């Protein structure tokens, strides 16, 4: 059982790490603010989600698990809202910004 859970953790966490890598590659390769937001938002939130998912079997107790999920939710919520605000600010600042 615990081996199975450990395997699950490894797979999920590794997948999450790959998404972080993808996000960073996006940041490095994409040309402008809007595509950066895209790279950061999508990849990072998914990355964190997978890491959280992978760590769930490793923590003790229900409360800790709930808190892990709450972390992901907060980041997701803030990320979505903030991305929109940044995009709007960037658009207002104009193409040269």
């Amino acid at each position, binding site marked *: 059982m615990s081996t199975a859970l*450990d395997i699950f*953790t*490894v797979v999920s*966490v*590794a997948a*999450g*790490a790959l998404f*972080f*890598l993808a*996000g*960073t590659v996006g*940041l*490095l390769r994409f040309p402008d*603010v809007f595509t*950066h*937001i895209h790279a*950061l938002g999508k990849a*990072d*939130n998914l*990355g*964190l989600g997978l*890491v*959280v998912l992978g*760590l769930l079997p*490793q*923590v*003790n107790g229900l409360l*800790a698990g709930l*808190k*892990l999920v*709450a*972390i992901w939710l*907060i*980041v997701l*919520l*803030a*990320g979505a*809202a*903030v*991305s929109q*605000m*940044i*995009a*709007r*600010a*960037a658009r*207002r*600042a104009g193409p040269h*910004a």
Partner: protein
Amino acid sequence: MAEFLFATSGFVLLTVALGLVRILRGPADADRMMAAQLLGSGGIAALLLLGAAAGVDAVIDLSLTLALLAAFATVAFVKFAATPARGEARADDAA
């Protein structure tokens, strides 16, 4: 297991570092505003992995705090930086 988690933590940290370099160099402020957000997701992932590897349960509470404060800081970046110096009173996130 711990070794794997440490390694992944280091790996995520590395990607965060690279991303930070890109973001901080700008040129637009809007790029830079993403820095706290990047730390808010990548930094937290690295932190959670580090804590799980080292067996420090309290990092979960720390991550909660970090998530909230990173969100707060990012909002402040956008709010203040995107507004003209004297015009804070205007409705600046009108659609």
